[in-house]
């Protein structure tokens, strides 16, 4: 009998717990969760981006938090791409979600995105799912946002073709004088007279930087000028790949002038990959070896002024140039001659006088003229509140 009573008590307790749980759930869901969920292919990408829009339609007193989860392909914990906790502020929310595969996923980039919204509790846990939407994504074959850049390149190629043809026919193009490059001979001559070495710093950028390649292009004619005077040329590097290329450039430069004996691979050397350690090492070399001329051409960041001021301190003539807009003022303040912005890219053609390269410089000038005209038309149209140029041409 006693046993029977115990069993009855246990069963009644279990039932009451079940009812309590149901009552609790009913308390949490004593409203109908509502909202508008949209998921759309982002477009202009490789098919991995979706835009998710969610507009809650419950009052904040009813639901304070929602949980938005976006999945690859199907709703599964393994396929979760992103989740966001949304505080109900009675407005429309937008999320850019990448469905890019993660390493643990066996399949490549997803082609389907699923968004699901849950009512969430204070702890941020999902309580009840109430909206699910999905979309298929597709990869684009042309990035429309780069249309004007593409058109610009085509136009430039057309100009290059025209001017190269003219150059081959023997037409001579006018190029304005660039003081920094005009002084190159003087700088090399001065270092030779003083019997001091010349330092050439190709910046701290890697070969993926155009400024570094432009600098290496200038190193070739500089080496040839240096070879004529047999002045020691030293090229400290921060990047081993740049160092390898610089070694070849210097070697070929000496060979072109018939002085391969002057080339010493130890003069084009690697120091360190750390920015300020490199700055400290180069400053130390300047202080100890007191160069007669210093060329600072390439990509520079905060260390630019350390180089320029140390070189100035040891009395070296400095010719600098960079495409880092924030470092140009430092070079102008501290160096004798500065190649401002595009002059760095024009220097190679200016020094070599190669008609083909000069032709491309002319093409660049014409493209710039077109850009200036477009800017002026844009300014005038914008005064009349017509933003066709700024919105559809210059921003794309």
């Amino acid at each position, binding site marked *: 009998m006693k046993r029977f009573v115990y069993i009855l008590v246990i069963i009644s307790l279990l039932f009451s717990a079940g009812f309590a749980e149901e009552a609790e759930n009913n308390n949490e869901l004593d409203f109908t969760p509502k909202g508008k969920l949209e998921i759309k292919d982002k477009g*202009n*990408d*490789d*098919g*991995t981006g979706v835009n998710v829009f969610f507009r809650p339609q419950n009052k904040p007193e009813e639901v304070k938090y929602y949980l938005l989860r976006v999945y690859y392909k199907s709703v599964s914990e393994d396929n979760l791409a992103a989740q966001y906790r949304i505080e109900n502020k009675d407005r429309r929310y937008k999320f850019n979600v990448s469905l890019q595969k993660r390493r643990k996923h066996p399949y*490549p*980039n997803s082609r389907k995105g699923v968004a699901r919204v849950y009512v969430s509790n204070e702890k941020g846990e999902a309580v009840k799912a109430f909206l699910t939407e999905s979309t298929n994504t597709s*990869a*684009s*074959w042309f990035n429309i946002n*780069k249309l004007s850049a593409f058109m610009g*390149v085509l136009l*430039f*190629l057309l100009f*290059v073709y025209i001017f190269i043809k003219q150059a081959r026919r023997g037409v001579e193009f006018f190029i304005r004088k660039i003081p920094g490059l005009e002084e190159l001979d003087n700088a090399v001559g001065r270092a030779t007279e003083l019997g001091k070495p010349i330092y050439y710093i190709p910046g701290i950028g890697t070969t*993926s930087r*155009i400024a570094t*390649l432009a600098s*290496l*292009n200038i190193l*070739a004619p500089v080496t040839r000028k240096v070879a004529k005077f047999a002045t020691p040329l030293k090229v400290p590097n921060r*990047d081993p*790949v740049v*160092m*390898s290329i610089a070694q*070849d*450039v210097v*070697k*070929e*430069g000496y060979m*072109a002038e018939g002085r391969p004996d002057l080339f010493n691979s*130890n003069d084009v*050397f690697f*120091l*360190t990959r*750390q920015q*300020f350690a490199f*700055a*400290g090492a180069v400053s130390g070399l300047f202080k100890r070896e007191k160069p007669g001329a210093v060329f600072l051409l390439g990509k520079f960041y*905060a260390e630019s*002024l*350390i180089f320029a*001021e140390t070189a100035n301190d040891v009395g070296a003539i400095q010719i600098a140039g960079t495409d880092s807009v924030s470092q*140009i003022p*430092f070079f*102008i*303040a*501290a160096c004798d001659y500065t190649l*401002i*912005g*595009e002059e760095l*890219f*024009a220097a190679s053609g200016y020094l070599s006088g*190669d008609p083909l*390269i000069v032709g*491309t410089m002319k*093409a*660049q000038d014409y493209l*710039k003229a077109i*850009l200036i005209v477009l800017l002026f038309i844009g300014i005038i149209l914008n005064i009349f509140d017509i933003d066709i140029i700024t919105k559809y041409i210059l921003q794309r």
Partner: protein
Amino acid sequence: MSLWKRRLPLICTIVFGIMGFILQLVPAFKSFLDIQNQWMTILFGFAIVIGVASLTKYHFKKIRQKPEERIFSYITFSSLIVMAVATLFGMKAETGIFNALYKNLFDYVYVPLDATIFSLLAFYITSAAFRAFKASSWLSTLLLFAGGIVMLGRVAFGPLMVFGELTQWIMSVPTVAAMRGIKIGIGLGMMATSIKIILGIERSFLGGE
């Protein structure tokens, strides 16, 4: 034109340059762009070996040729070896002597040294500004006035706040206008240089004409 020195690098430049251009325009090929970036990381990994070899060669020669500067080379060698060993064995480890060595070298040697060199900039800016702010021509006088207003504007209070507003105007109107002009030129220059290299018109970086 030798195959290994000129022709092959030139072909690689043209092929990969055109490929890079297409990859930027066609989002569908983005996964190839990711592969290209992974290749670059691998290449840089191998390149550091060349760098260390160059550094070692340079300092060995320096020890032989310049005995008075050999102390710097010894410091470089010992730093290179100790930091490499500490990082190899200590970076991933949670505890242990190498982990402690790595952490201490990084936090109490490398970071302070880096910060010290960076802080030198304050003094260099002062000395460069001193030279730049000499009223030798009307342009440098204009620079002097503009610089003076901006410096006053940065610390302005009370009635001097007029300099603050002037500073705001100088920084957001003429400065930005000049910078954008330079940026447009740089953008065009970069495009022109890239195309010259891709088309093989510019070959100086390969060591010659």
